[in-house]
């Protein structure tokens, strides 16, 4: 397995022989197809982190994240969500699906 990107809490791997990705959440490692990774990206990008600083909108400061068609459930705090956002953004740059990467490298 090749490491694609490592953030503070999480690591994204690519498994060449299985044509898929692995995301190490610390407590658990989750196998993901690209579709599932895209779906995670969508969920993560949809989270308004500002709501965590508003007692009415998100009083507890946690997010419940269900992945891979409800196979996995994670409860993440503000710092973990921020870190996951970072991992997703940089991960997609590293696998070449984000336009942001090449512009910076070239």
């Amino acid at each position, binding site marked *: 397995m090749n490491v694609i990107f490592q953030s503070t809490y999480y690591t994204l791997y*690519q498994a*060449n022989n299985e044509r898929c990705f692995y995301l190490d959440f610390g407590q658990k490692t989750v196998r993901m197809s*690209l*579709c599932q990774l895209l779906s995670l990206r969508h969920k993560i990008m949809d989270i308004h982190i500002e709501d965590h600083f508003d007692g009415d909108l998100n009083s507890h400061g946690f997010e419940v994240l269900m992945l891979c068609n409800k196979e996995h459930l994670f409860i993440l705090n503000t710092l973990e969500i921020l870190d996951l956002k970072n991992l997703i953004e940089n991960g997609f740059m590293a*696998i070449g*699906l*984000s*336009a942001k990467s*090449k512009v910076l490298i070239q």
Partner: protein
Amino acid sequence: MKDIARQSMSIKVESMDLLNGQIKIEAHASATYLAMASWCEQNGFFTSAKFFFKQAEEEREHMMKIFNFLVDTGGNPISPEVTDINHDYSSITDIFESTLEHEVKVTKSIHNIVKKARQAGDIATERFLDWFVMEQVEEENTIRDILDMIEVTGTEGVGLQMIDNQVANWIE
């Protein structure tokens, strides 16, 4: 390292995000035209109602075109949430003026995606949107023509009924 990601998906995620945004805009347009059809029906503009029922269908087709493009390119198309549909209009002129305003917004949004796709070197997305660019020219033109017709006909006396009858010329 094998390029599994590129082999599974042929456009950039930024383009995908913008196209998902456009899916939402087309869905919103479709719902808005349905609301306009409802207004026209309730206010006795039956030909205009027909026109807007057809527009609503067309906007849904636009949405599905983008949806299927995201399927074809291995992206993640998102079924849109449609909210805030206005049902209140002061007149038939108000309806068509709002329509033109709406179409101009849609055109701007499409042009923005074309520019971003070009910047990102996403040729597939750029070329895919060619059809939408030309479609918008046509749609804007149709509504402008109808507004010109309203202006010429005038809304006094039987004017309103004449306006409604003439809208038939723009229903294919």
